[in-house]
């Protein structure tokens, strides 16, 4: 069977599975729609959380980023996993104990203020919408690259599938499809990694292979990689820092607290039965995430080694362009690989200076082309397409639910129309979900110019606004509404200010209002890493403001006592 037919078959089968699950897991109450009925097994929830969390970026781009950054790429590995420790120890069990449906609902109740609730809804919608654009693009790209279907048609098919199971099943449908999607994506990610590790090191476990010697030699894989990269003028793979130590520190911290503050991840912990389940479930989520996140650095280093080795089989002899392998030709067609024969010798020179002839090596090919580079069978290549789609669909669905529930539950039921019945709210939530899918689709068709810069914004906002408000709501009894609102607004504005100053207002280039500043002027911290600073500003401002305004009313102090109490019947 040829590759295209095989890919259609495997992707078609996974889609049929998702639709089957959607029909089986329809939601009939708001509780089912918002939190899947609240009785999900902690291991199952962990798996769903892992799929919810690992997006097209984790699946397709992260290993590629690490491959080209080396040690500097560790910020993503530590940042996107370490956040779960904070989430599990500081937020998830308490928010589960509080036992409501959404994140803004907790903020609104704890700070006895609809203003706080609305501010939280705004932060939530901005971070989730910016995040969902990336998923929609991922779906379109996966279709166009693997199935040779138009980007637009691919996007429409993807939207149709999400629409079907998210509108019908809400959190319940999303949870069960995410479990299936996790299985698809982890299988698709690890199978090529195992083959490649076996090829290079003889060890089938990529995490061990990365620390092993190369087949038929006494040289360790990482030492070899350091050596050949420095030979062609790159920095050493294992020590290549991202800008400087302070920036690595701030970047990692921003990603960690941003992760802990992302509402679509937090609400997954509302779906388990007990508080103790929420704790264990966070552990399982991280186990399932760690399987991919510890494999990714192995994929990264091995792919980089394979790439350089293909182009320069040995130090004196470079690859003749006309003898390039098939995968090279295939990926040249997509524009992700680009070669320019600068010195006209018909051979490929790959260096880190002006004589470099590999003018384009897109980071995404590291995962996408990996099976081809390693000569793996066609079904493995087809699987990668299904895995990428599973990663993008599962994250999109989780984000859309967070948006829909904030609109129907927080804005409509909570603030504007408290009197609507459960039936009406359920209909409203389906309507909000449908609207969110359409909005996300629209943004996928017309990605705004600022799409590339939005990840910084999503994590920055979550870290600087939502996380501190939640954490102090639990750990600082005295925190009142004045402090929390001032803190959220301060954290938000400082982060926006910094990101916009560097990347342009609303990401429009050349609108930096303070003139042309040296990039990263604040102690060398890049805009993507600024959420941590925003969070510190939030903490400081809220504590200051709360210390000279009134203590919260008694029923709020009781509420805080209550979520801190040991769990009893």
């Amino acid at each position: 069977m040829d590759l295209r037919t095989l890919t259609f078959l495997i992707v078609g089968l996974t889609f049929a599975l998702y639709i089957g699950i959607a029909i089986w897991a329809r939601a009939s109450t708001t509780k089912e729609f918002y939190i899947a009925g609240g009785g999900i097994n902690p291991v199952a929830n962990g798996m769903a959380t892992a799929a919810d969390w690992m997006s097209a970026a984790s699946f397709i781009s992260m290993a590629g980023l690490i491959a080209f950054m080396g040690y500097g790429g560790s910020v993503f590995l530590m940042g996107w996993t370490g956040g779960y420790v904070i989430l599990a120890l500081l937020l998830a069990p308490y928010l589960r104990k509080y036992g409501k449906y959404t994140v803004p609902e907790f903020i609104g109740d704890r700070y006895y203020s609809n203003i706080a609730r609305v501010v939280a809804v705004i932060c939530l919608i901005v971070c989730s919408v910016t995040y969902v654009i990336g998923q929609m693009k991922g779906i379109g790209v996966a279709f166009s690259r693997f199935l040779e279907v138009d980007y637009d048609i691919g996007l429409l098919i993807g939207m149709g599938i999400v629409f079907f199971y998210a509108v019908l099943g809400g959190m319940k449908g999303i949870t069960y499809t995410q479990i299936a999607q996790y299985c698809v994506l982890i299988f698709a990610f690890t199978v090529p990694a195992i083959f490649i590790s076996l090829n290079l090191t003889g060890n089938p476990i990529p995490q061990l292979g990365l620390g092993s010697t190369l087949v038929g030699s006494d040289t360790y894989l990482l030492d070899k990689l350091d050596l050949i990269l420095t030979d062609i003028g790159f920095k050493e793979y294992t020590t290549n820092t991202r800008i400087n130590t302070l920036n690595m520190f701030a970047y990692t911290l921003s990603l960690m607290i941003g992760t802990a503050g992302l509402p679509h991840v937090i609400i997954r912990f509302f779906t388990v039965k007990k508080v103790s389940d929420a704790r264990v479930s966070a552990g399982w989520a991280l186990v399932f995430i760690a399987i991919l996140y510890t494999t990714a650095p192995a994929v990264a280093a091995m792919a980089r080694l394979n790439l350089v080795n293909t182009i320069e089989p040995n130090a004196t002899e470079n690859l003749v362009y006309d003898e390039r392998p098939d995968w090279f030709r295939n990926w040249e067609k997509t524009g992700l690989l680009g070669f320019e024969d600068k010195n006209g010798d018909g051979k490929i020179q790959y260096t880190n200076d002006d004589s470099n002839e590999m003018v384009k090596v897109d980071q995404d090919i590291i995962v996408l082309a990996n099976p081809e580079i390693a000569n793996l069978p066609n079904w493995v290549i087809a699987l990668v397409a299904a895995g990428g789609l599973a990663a993008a669909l599962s994250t999109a669905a989780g984000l859309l639910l967070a948006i829909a529930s904030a609109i129907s539950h927080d804005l409509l039921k909570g603030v504007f129309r408290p009197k609507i019945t459960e039936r009406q709210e359920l209909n409203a939530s389906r309507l909000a979900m449908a609207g969110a899918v359409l909005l996300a689709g629209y943004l996928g068709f017309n990605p705004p110019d600022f799409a590339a810069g939005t990840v910084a914004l999503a994590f920055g906002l979550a870290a600087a606004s939502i996380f501190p408000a939640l954490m102090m709501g639990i750990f600082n009894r005295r925190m009142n509404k004045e402090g929390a609102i001032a803190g959220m607004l301060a954290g938000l504005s400082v982060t926006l200010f910094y990101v916009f100053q560097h990347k342009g207002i609303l990401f429009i280039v050349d609108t930096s209002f303070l003139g042309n500043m040296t990039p990263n002027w604040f102690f060398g911290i890049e805009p993507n890493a600024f959420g941590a600073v925003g969070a510190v500003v939030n903490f400081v401002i809220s504590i200051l403001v709360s210390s000279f305004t009134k203590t919260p009313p008694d029923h709020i102090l009781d509420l805080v006592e209550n979520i801190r109490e040991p769990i009893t019947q």
Partner: protein
Amino acid sequence: MSSKTKANAYWQANLKLVSVLLCIWFIVSFLCGIVLVDFLNQFRLGGYKLGFWFAQQGSIYTFVVLIFVYAHKMKKLDQQFGSGE
């Protein structure tokens, strides 16, 4: 113990546990993986430089263990102070 002092003791025990675990969280990632990485890189774990290993492998494994230790210890605390779930 009155329910108030009991709740208080539970909360203090919880804070202590969380602080210890967060210290370890900080040490394996921010210290071993970032601040002390050059120092640790002179040691090796198989083919890995030790600092590099912490940054790309070791910290993640430790995170997983930390969450399960937390869940387990909290369950014990709940049984000790409350009446279990």
